[in-house]
């Protein structure tokens, strides 16, 4: 088990529990009572820690190395899945995956950022940072879905679009912009969920939809807290403050009307009970598709655009003569 900094009190409890269990297995001392008590203490401690997470702590949780990623959810949610590769122009991006899946008999096209599960795979997946061909592959699959009338599901989990030299040469900005433009006009239902990190253009590049959800311990922002700290505070040391100031948690996003709902995570985060998490995610995706499926494509597109057109807060200043 990997413990995050704020989970340290849990770690020592777990260590104690392990020791007791070892003693129990070695000798004739009955430890069941003690173990049960410790387990209770762990449960309570966990509740205590998790009922009061700060923005920065949720950012850390969203990046937990054991957190489930897109392909895990797809495998759990879909009885059948065929991964489809390549953008047909340049390459197959490993940081965005996608394909045809079956959600209890309903065919959908599922697309998502993919991070690696170990050091080698993290590199292979470029840490979930897509290049233009990733966004173009996503668009190709969405167009496929549109042609055959399948709903589109996207799972968002990226620290940002890749800021590389070749990404610029191949038009990172154009690829993201094109997706936003095309997703606004997709004739089929589009349902999105932030399952980990939702950083900036790289996230929204596959994140414009009829319904957008966030898992409880994820974040969505125009910039990562670290980069925000380095630009506005001119130092990397203010990431906690930046995370607070950006108001980037699911609770905030829901309160602001930027997302349509929060998907509760099992106590302790998605990684503590990934199968349960996948069930909860699937239930919400199916519900969301059902909500928008009966509209005509024209109605759906209009409602989708109207939803985004309403986002923004400003004031009208009284006309002054100077």
């Amino acid at each position, binding site marked *: 088990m990997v413990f995050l900094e704020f989970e340290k009190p849990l770690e020592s409890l777990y260590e104690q529990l392990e020791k007791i269990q070892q003693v129990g297995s070695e000798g004739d001392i009955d430890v069941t009572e003690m173990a049960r008590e410790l387990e209770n203490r762990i449960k309570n401690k966990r509740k205590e820690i998790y009922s009061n997470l700060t923005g920065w702590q949720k950012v850390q949780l969203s990046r937990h190395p054991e957190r489930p990623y897109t392909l895990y959810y797809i495998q759990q949610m879909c009885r059948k899945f065929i991964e489809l590769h390549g953008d047909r122009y340049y390459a197959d991006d490993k940081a965005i995956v996608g394909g045809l899946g079956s959600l209890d008999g309903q065919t959908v096209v599922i697309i998502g950022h993919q991070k690696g599960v170990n050091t080698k795979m993290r590199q292979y997946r470029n840490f979930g940072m897509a290049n233009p061909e990733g966004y173009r592959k996503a668009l190709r699959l969405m167009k496929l879905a549109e042609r055959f009338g399948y709903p589109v599901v996207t799972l968002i989990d990226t620290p940002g679009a890749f*800021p590389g030299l070749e990404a*610029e040469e191949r038009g990172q900005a154009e690829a993201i912009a094109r997706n936003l433009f095309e997703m*606004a006009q997709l004739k089929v239902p589009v349902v999105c969920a932030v399952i980990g990190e939702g950083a900036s253009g790289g996230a929204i590049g596959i994140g414009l939809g009829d319904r957008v959800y966030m898992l409880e311990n994820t974040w969505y922002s125009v910039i990562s807290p670290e980069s925000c700290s380095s630009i*506005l505070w001119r130092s990397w040391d203010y990431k906690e403050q930046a995370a607070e100031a950006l108001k980037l948690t699911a609770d905030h996003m829901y309160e602001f009307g930027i997302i349509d709902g929060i998907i509760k995570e099992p106590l302790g985060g998605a990684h503590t009970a990934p199968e349960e998490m996948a069930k909860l995610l699937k239930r919400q995706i199916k519900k969301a598709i059902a909500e928008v499926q009966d509209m005509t494509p024209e109605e759906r597109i209009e409602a989708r655009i109207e939803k985004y057109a309403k986002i923004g807060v400003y004031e009208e200043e009284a006309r002054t003569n100077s």
Partner: protein
Amino acid sequence: MGWFKRLKDGIQTATRNKKDTPEGLWYKCKRCKETSTVKELKDNYFKCPQCNFHVRITSYDYFGLIFDGQYEELFENMVSKDFLEFKDLKPYTERLKSAKDKTGLKDAIAVAQGKVNRRPLVIAAMDFKFIGGSMGSVVGEKIAKAIDHCIEQRVPFLMISKSGGARMMESAFSLMQMAKTSAKLSQMASAKIPYFSLMTDPTTGGVTASFAMLGDINFAEPEALIGFAGPRVIKETIKKELPDGFQTSEFLLEHGFLDFIVDRKDLKETLSDLLYFFEKPPANPAVENA
């Protein structure tokens, strides 16, 4: 050997002792360091008379250069609001106030309607001086309103981008302006209203990754910085020096993301030609029935 030895080389005037040229009279070019009068600069379309460097100008300067004299400003009273109570080293409210005081502008964008060689056009132009031309709710909403206006009046739309990207102090709201502006542009495209996107120095971040790249015609001023990630971030990522001319207008043209580059002197005539080509053609039954 002389009696006196020069111990320190180079310029030794501290920045605070530097003598600035008085504002409003002289212009010293950032690139060639040559000096010319502000009048010469203005007469030369705000380009350095010596080296043709395109100086960063305001939205109103562009309106003056492009429109036939008169124009009408639209949605001019919209101002930003610090609804997140965002505070870094300074509160956002203070940044907004000082930007307003310093620039006399209300936000990083102005929208106006006028005529270009007698053909109507709506222009939304950004102001870099206002918090780096950053896109927050006001920028997004003004673009959205301008698009609605263009669809309703059936007038072509020119967007002049000049921005460092999304405005961090409005967090996810500024991010959502990317979705909002792109979604509105898709409506304008369906309505077959032509959209021209002019990128000027600099156009980066969320602005490039949304409306700036979505023109029916994409074009730029010479030597403008245009990109998604900033050059510093890319350099840190790849840990290599960036090649000369990386992320310039010329680089983007070469890689297929611009239709052409336009010298500011030819801007009005180019737009006039575009408006000529995109004007609704006279009905031609032979073609329509084909």
